[in-house]
């Protein structure tokens, strides 16, 4: 009884993440890679992503403080960050990244700064949601 409740909970959380546009098909690709030899694969990848990308986020933040902005550098960082975000299927984050790149091309300082705030927002929102989801999923699996 408990088990099925938890499982249903996990399922609907997962569903919501997709429905609300936080995740895309790449996440499913990761889920498909999960198997007995790597039962926590998805969670590991997500953890790895957040750990590694933190550095890039920091770099971008720093770069955004200087004036004038070094758009080339920003573009570089963003390219890397976007690539990483695509790895876990972070859909909203990726979309904001695209916007950021466009502002970079246009050399729009304000646009870049604003968009990056959005990126950080989405980035941490997703993190929280995924953490919660994984926790529930784990519990569901254990019972």
């Amino acid at each position, binding site marked *: 009884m408990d088990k099925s409740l938890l*499982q249903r909970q*996990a*399922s609907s959380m*997962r*569903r919501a993440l*997709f*429905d609300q546009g936080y995740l895309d*098909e*790449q996440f*499913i*690709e*990761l*889920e*498909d*890679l*999960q*198997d*007995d*030899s*790597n*039962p*926590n*694969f*998805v969670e*590991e*990848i997500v953890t*790895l*992503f957040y750990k*590694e*990308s933190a*550095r890039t986020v920091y*770099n971008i933040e720093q770069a955004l403080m200087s004036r004038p902005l070094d758009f080339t550098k920003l573009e570089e960082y963003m*390219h*890397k960050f*976007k*690539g*990483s975000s*695509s*790895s*876990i*299927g972070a859909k909203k984050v990726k979309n904001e990244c695209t916007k950021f790149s466009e502002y970079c091309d246009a050399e729009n300082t304000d646009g870049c700064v604003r968009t990056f705030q959005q990126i950080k927002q989405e980035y941490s929102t997703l993190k929280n949601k995924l953490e919660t989801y994984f926790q529930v*999923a*784990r519990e*569901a*699996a*254990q019972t």
Partner: protein
Amino acid sequence: MDNGFSSPRRDAFPAGLRVLVVDDDPTWLRILEKMLKKCSYEVTTCCLAREALNLLRERKDGYDIVISDVNMPDMDGFKLLEHVGLEMDLPVIMMSVDGETSRVMKGVQHGACDYLLKPIRMKELRNIWQHVFRKRIHEAREFESLDGFEGILLMRNGSDQSDDGNLFALEDMTSIKKRKDVDNKHDDREYGDPSSTKKARVVWSVDLHQKFVKAVNQIGFDKVGPKKILDLMNVPWLTRENVASHLQKYRLYLSRLQKENDQKSSSCGVKLSDLPSKDPPGSVGFQNLINRQQNDVKLDVFKFSEGTVQPQNVDPKSHDSDLKVISESTSEKRRALTNKIPDKKIRRSSEMGVNHSHIPSESEANRQVFGCTISTQYPWSEVPEMQLKQENKSFLHLEDSFSQLPLHGTQHHIQVNQSQSISSNHSISEGEIAGCIETKPLYADDKSDYTSSGSSTGRAIDAFSVQPKSHGQSLEPIHNTNCIPDPEFHQRNVLLGDEVASAPLDEDLHLYWLEGECYNMNLGLQMSEYYDPALISETPFHLYDSADYSVVDQGLFIA
């Protein structure tokens, strides 16, 4: 041929394909590793381009294909691509989150055999074996022409005794070829010692190549010949065959440069049909190109590894022994060769005499074949010529025939390929392919909706333990050179542009002796398809078995 490296040949191709993944993003590296393992490939990962090159150099025969991200911190991915193509001649797949046409085009120009966009799906990785396969087919074709050449050389004493100023005298070759064809009727099954000896590959470093070019210029491009060059170069371990094949490449390279200059074409590759007609381009043109090239600082572009077999039991320093070996080998080859397509061979060899850029009209069909394929692993400059490369290789291998003793695999491969009919290989390869397909559940297209199998929720989640071996299959241990980059590390290792590329190359003089290289892989490949389209359809190739020559044996037993 188990050389101690991971040798995937036990599995049915493409299972066990040895992939080297290069990406500075650890998340992607992990994902790709997992995906490739799911494809039953053997995966090695690394996060730096330099490291990748080191790995590749350490194990010349250790990998079948390289997948690399375009944006690497220590070296431009395109540069890495070039190096891999030049030195190791492996197919390289590029990846990037950026799918802009210009980038993709650049990738292709630099020799990438494919360009994947991130996020990468599993199904895209499943098919990467085709690039390896394609390469082997092409190499098999080159070997076929090699036959003709060695026969010619044999007839001409195939040795340094004569002044081989021009190894490719048209008339000689035609007549010689005819004679050879007669001799080649035997389907000789013995190859001496075909199994264990591997081919060594000479890598032409910048220094070596510069010596070469200097020698060529000294002699005068018109009068140049491998022996003269070799004497001038004064490199003891280099053989005349090495020089001959390098010379061939060089000529083709120059011819291509010339054409590029003429045509101002920015697309990749010069179509074979565009190559000059029968008359050899003026050697003056070549001379100019040579001069230009000498002034070209980026000679590293011209570095390539030569598919030269260095017979193990022949002292490379001794030309005499080479000669002896050569005559032995060639005579044996003569016996061994079954030439099914004498006319084509003659034609092929006649090409040689015409500055290598003449494509006989008969190979129209073959041009088609060339034109269709994509595998470009031979970046001579920024614009690799796939077709030319194939021509290169064919010529190259023609010259390499000298160094390929009957004791070694290469010639045997050729012979096997030639003499084989399709049957045994057919069944083998099909079986293998079928077998390997079955082993993998397909993950590809069943996720149109968000409801996955609920796998994540349903599993018992214990303490997670990474198992390098794929559970279901007995794969070889995975070589994992994961390194998590950090900024400091990157900064220490950031080298600028060419320095990165050239430094290691200069340091190690490139005496990489490749063992059992790609030529061996051509076992079982039906080379006659190159000439005879009719045969193509019947020939699924025996895909992988270069390591052991059992395929050869199998092929040999065809009636």
